[in-house]
């Protein structure tokens, strides 16, 4: 097992190096440089050249890449031009916020998606099934940012149950209750589509399983219907539901960008969008590399866990 982990970790190194090259080249190639973005109307060639020199952007491209890479290997991701603070501080702070949001959404979509799918399958063509199928179709069809805006209008502006935006109250907040209060709307808005997808697939997976012989056998033996559905059938259906959950985890993480914009959630997606618009090179590069490294590590962790559960996977 130890050698398997080491092997996987080593294989991550070229992936990460490739990511640094790609993100560096993309930032170098997109038109518009940070000096122009900072100076705006005052970006005369003279002012731009001077500012580029001050920002250390007048070095040749290759030299800049290796300086950046070298600093990063020593843990120095540089300073953001647009926020004037260390890139690492900003990215870790905001990645946490994204994880809280996406994590909550993931739990919501897994929980409610599976529940809805199971109920729907157990009552196939009944009223519950029709209701759930309709709700699921509706949920999948509504873009999350639109849903978010509607939720703000109804629950924050008119009913005033929840705050419009942000992660903590500006005054007298900061505890867990305050965080949950701010988290409800964005997490729900983000989870709706994913919940729909999970529910649909859970329903068809369950229907498949419920037709099988061992279910009939269980029923014939007199096992209660609740136990048949939730214990026997769901356990078997989970085999095909789990990969879908994995995909949805990626979906909520990337979908968080829109939700972060609408609800002004201080997450990493919003940070990257702002940073790209401001041509904040170091923040974009550092942000992408750190987020990518987390994805890679997460994938390795999942593979390792899976190989622990199912020794056949280990190669």
């Amino acid at each position: 097992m130890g050698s398997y982990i080491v092997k996987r970790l080593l294989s991550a190194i070229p992936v990460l190096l490739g990511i640094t090259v790609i993100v560096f080249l993309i930032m170098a190639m997109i038109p518009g440089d940070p000096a122009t973005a900072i100076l705006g109307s005052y970006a005369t060639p003279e002012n731009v050249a001077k500012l580029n020199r001050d920002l250390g952007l007048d070095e040749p491209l290759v030299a800049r890449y290796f300086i950046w890479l070298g600093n990063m290997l020593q843990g120095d991701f540089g300073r953001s031009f647009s926020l004037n603070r260390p890139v690492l501080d900003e990215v870790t702070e905001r990645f946490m916020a994204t994880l809280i949001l996406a994590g909550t959404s993931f739990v919501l979509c897994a929980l409610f998606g599976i529940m809805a799918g199971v109920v729907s399958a157990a009552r196939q063509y009944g009223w519950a099934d029709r209701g759930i199928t309709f709700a699921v179709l509706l949920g999948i069809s509504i873009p999350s940012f639109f849903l978010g805006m509607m939720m703000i209008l109804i629950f924050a502006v008119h009913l005033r149950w929840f705050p419009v935006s942000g992660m903590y109250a500006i005054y007298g907040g900061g505890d867990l209750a305050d965080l949950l209060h701010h988290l409800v709307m964005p997490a729900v808005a983000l989870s709706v589509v994913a919940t729909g997808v999970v529910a649909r697939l859970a329903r068809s997976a369950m229907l498949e399983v419920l037709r099988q012989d061992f279910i009939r056998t269980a029923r014939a033996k007199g096992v209660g219907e609740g136990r048949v559905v939730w214990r026997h059938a769901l356990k078997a259906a989970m085999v095909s539901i789990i990969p879908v959950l994995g995909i949805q985890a990626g979906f909520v993480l990337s979908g968080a960008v829109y939700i972060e914009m609408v609800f002004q959630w201080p997450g990493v997606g919003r940070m990257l969008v702002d940073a790209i618009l401001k041509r904040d090179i170091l923040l974009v590069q550092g942000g992408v590399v750190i987020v990518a490294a987390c994805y890679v590590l997460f994938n390795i962790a999942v593979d390792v866990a899976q190989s622990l559960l199912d020794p056949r996977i280990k190669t």
Partner: protein
Amino acid sequence: MQQGMLNWTRRGVLAAGVAMSMALGATAPATAQTPPGVLIVGQIAEPKALDPAAVTAVNDFRILMNVYDGLVRYRDGTLEVEPALATAWEISEDGTEYTFTLREGVRFHDGSDFNAEAVVFNFERMLNEDHPYHDTGPFPLAFFFSAVESVEAVDDLTVRFTLNEPYAPFLSNLAYPTGLIVSPAAVEQHGADFGRNPSGTGPFTFKEWRSNEAVVVEKNPEYWDGAPELDAVVFRPITDANTRTAEMLAGGIDLMVEVPPVSLSEFQGEGFTVHEQAGPHLWFLILNAKEGPFADKRVRQAANYAINKTALVDNVLEGTADVAAGPTPPAFAWAYNESLEPYPYDPEKAKALLAEAGVDDLSLTFYVTEGGSGMLDPVAMGTAIQADLNAVGFDTEIETYEWNTFLGEVNPGLEGKADMAEMAWMTNDPDTLPYLALRTDAWPDKGGFNSGYYSNPEVDKLLEAARVATDQEKRAELYKRMQEIVQEDAPWVFVANWKQNAVTSEAVENFALQPSFFLLLDDVVKN
């Protein structure tokens, strides 16, 4: 069955738990009402830094103007300079020496004294590359003071600036945020992190900066111009305009700037006040006078007649702008030529001019941006302009770019690429825009912003003369003459002067917008 029931229940408890926590959240007070005396301002973005020498965005200026003072400032409601940290000044005959008498007994928020040495420190830090704290930059707008040759402390309360040539906008530039005075002691203490630990002499002292959440400033009870009414101000960055509007409607903020035109109707009812103030802003189209159809003055004038500017400001911009008449915004009251009338909307006249010019190929490439500072609603405006131009016989093709890409295309000049481009400027002196964008010596290859290659020796002469004239009346005369010529030559299509807007809740009193686009809060009251 027993077992099954138990399972149902366990899951039921779990689901109920989630539902409970949501309901609990719902019962907590949603918008924790902020105490009176604390003003919450909805900003359009997270500030870059609170170091006035290091920032360029109006968004950051809105905070800075409440934490710092300059030697001079704009008189309330005008763009004319009055004393602030300097109580008086003298300008030498030749216009190259400015001697300021400083206010006595003023202290920075960190307790250190404001004096001539502090002023010298500020300008040396920005302008002198050998200064020990020059590395706390970069200082992108330092060229505002590029005419400054030396700054010296004559005595504790007298400071003298020597310029390398007469430069009339100097005083006005001192009133700009780049000229705000920071505490040398705080720069020495915090170094590169000064921008997150600011200290000035202004009406509010810096309290805390919670990244992406809020910047909090508190009342400075010892403010030399009288302590402010508010106890504290919280600046909240809310980048999405719709969310900002929703926060304002829900009571999450008390003051909102840059209300999108389409949202203004939301605030017409009771409980809100909408504020408007014309500012030194011009939205225009740069025409390529070097090549293509616009090389002919009559075709440029035809474009000015063809575009229905009134419809643009009333319908696309919902009345948030006025029709522009010439290159100088009316907000520069003293330098503005009142006799100038905007080009009327007259498609027939445009057609006649085009026929007279006899240009065969009227196809145009039109650069449009997706957004950007002061650009208002550039895509919708570009589309409306395209329709108006095509109606009189032009064949306009739009190319749309993201803002920084757009600047990268437009600033180096339109030659060989496009016939016209959208542009907008906000400035602090009538000198800035025409000097940087209309002179022959401001063509892109000479380092200016004259991307349409307009050239008129008389305009060049007037602008050079206005820049070195220290007498304001004389300057005004020169600018007024320049506006007449430029309007006639039509190097641009003069479209709109934006009126900055803001909304306040009914709890807020004594608030007024400034033509400078700064946000001054020292007299504001919140009940």
